[in-house]
């Protein structure tokens, strides 16, 4: 059950998405805290089958800036996983981030030790997070972004299981212009992050995907060919349309 302020936040997000119109953040003025924001997020996905989660605000610097001491998470549904071409007209304020994602081959219960989490990781893939915040200019407090599903919009996944662990860089090009790049090392320690998520959400299931966050700031999306290059010559292509 949502409190009255949580309901207001929920409705503001729903209407902003429906009208595809960004709006000013309001969690603070409503007095909704982080726990309330996660309740708002959960309410938005009641009845949806979750294929996984995304981690956000994974850098310590970003967390400090937002007054957090951990990452945040958002939910990923089957409909959010895309292949090929996506129309930007579906989104409010689309941005793109280069990411890695893990797909679990075993369940990860809350409190699982990092070694068990490492064993449960079935494969690591390149990922592109097509972020979409309803909060104007992506200026938000932690409860705002959490209530808005950690700015989750749509996702692309690579088709090659990457050698792991691996060093290297993620470099995201949009029509051959480098728009975001950063080291894979910035996403470490992967097992500890997945373990944190498992505890935060009450356990992860075999087959679920976890987008690990981005080692670089998001870039504005525009129509064109997205090309993500990663370790070992790996490649992920996606097309953005108007």
């Amino acid at each position, binding site marked *: 059950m949502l409190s009255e302020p949580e309901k207001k936040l929920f409705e503001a997000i729903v209407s902003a998405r429906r009208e595809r119109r960004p709006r000013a953040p309001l969690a603070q003025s409503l007095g909704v805290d982080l726990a309330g924001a996660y309740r708002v997020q959960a309410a938005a996905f009641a009845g949806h089958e979750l294929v996984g989660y995304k981690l956000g605000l994974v850098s310590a610097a970003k967390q400090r800036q937002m007054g957090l001491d951990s990452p945040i998470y958002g939910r990923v549904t*089957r409909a959010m996983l895309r292949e090929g071409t996506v129309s930007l007209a579906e989104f409010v304020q689309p941005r793109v981030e280069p990411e890695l994602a893990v797909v679990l*081959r*075993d369940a990860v219960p809350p409190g699982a030790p990092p070694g068990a989490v490492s064993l449960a990781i079935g*494969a690591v893939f390149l990922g592109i997070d097509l972020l979409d915040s309803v909060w104007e200019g992506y200026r938000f407090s932690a409860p705002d972004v959490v209530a808005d599903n950690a700015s989750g919009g749509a996702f692309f996944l690579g088709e090659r299981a990457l050698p792991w662990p691996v060093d290297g860089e993620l470099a995201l090009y949009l029509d051959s212009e480098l728009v975001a790049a950063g080291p894979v090392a910035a996403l470490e320690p992967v097992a500890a992050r997945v373990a944190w998520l498992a505890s935060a959400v009450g356990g992860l299931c075999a087959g679920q995907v976890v987008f690990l966050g981005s080692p670089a700031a998001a870039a504005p999306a525009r129509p064109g060919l997205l090309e993500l290059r990663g370790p070992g010559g790996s490649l992920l292509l996606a097309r953005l349309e108007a």
Partner: protein
Amino acid sequence: MADHVVTLDVDSLAKQLEAALVTRQPIPPLTETLGPLTPEQAYAIQTRWTELRVAAGERIVGRKIGLTSRAMQEQLGVREPDYGSLWGSRYFPASGHRVEIPSDLLIQPRLEGEIAFLIGRRLQGPGVTLQHVLAATEAVALSVEVVDSRIEAWRIKLADTIADDASFGAFTVGPWSRTLLQEDLRTLGMIIQKNGVPATEGIGAAALGHPARCVAWLANKLAEFGVALEPGDIVLSGSLARALPAEPGDTFVVELHSQPPLTVRFV
């Protein structure tokens, strides 16, 4: 049509296929003898045949996926692959990267080069993606499937091959590799030489664009029958090149990028 469904004698048709297998006397296409059959009816015949074989001591060691190339789909006028069971009695393990296939078990064999998946975790559709497949796979290997048809002169329509265990004949696999699993399976190149002469080339992407996509299709298809891919199952994901007719005395060398070549001799 409804009556047709009810009166289809899957048991007798399965026994005809078994008799053709054992006597090596192919039968006319079921779709000529019986008229049009739906894929569902054809799978019912296949399932019954599998049950009969298992009852007689056969072991199902995995699955094969067929009709994964655009060329094969166009030839049969279909837009979907099909699948069959891999029989333990028709698994010929390689020794020192060599294997002999007894021709006297086969009717009209053809050789295909494929990528085999060793399933490590249960894959239960619907909703299985190629990433799920890669995450749940223990290792992959170069494999050779000998396809064969219990239907006269390979005069098959879709329902004929489905009923006929997707034209499965025999198979072998090279060494299981975890390293190969982390390659881009789409770009793996394959060359098959027949009697020392290059005969055909293939590439991973020839199977529905990605061999793991074929396995995902299979997991989702099997879910329609309440069946999952289980740990230990071997899945032959689909031919990467043209099938090559094989006669007694023929020697094929099948090479896949980074893997030891596999020599297959028909005796």
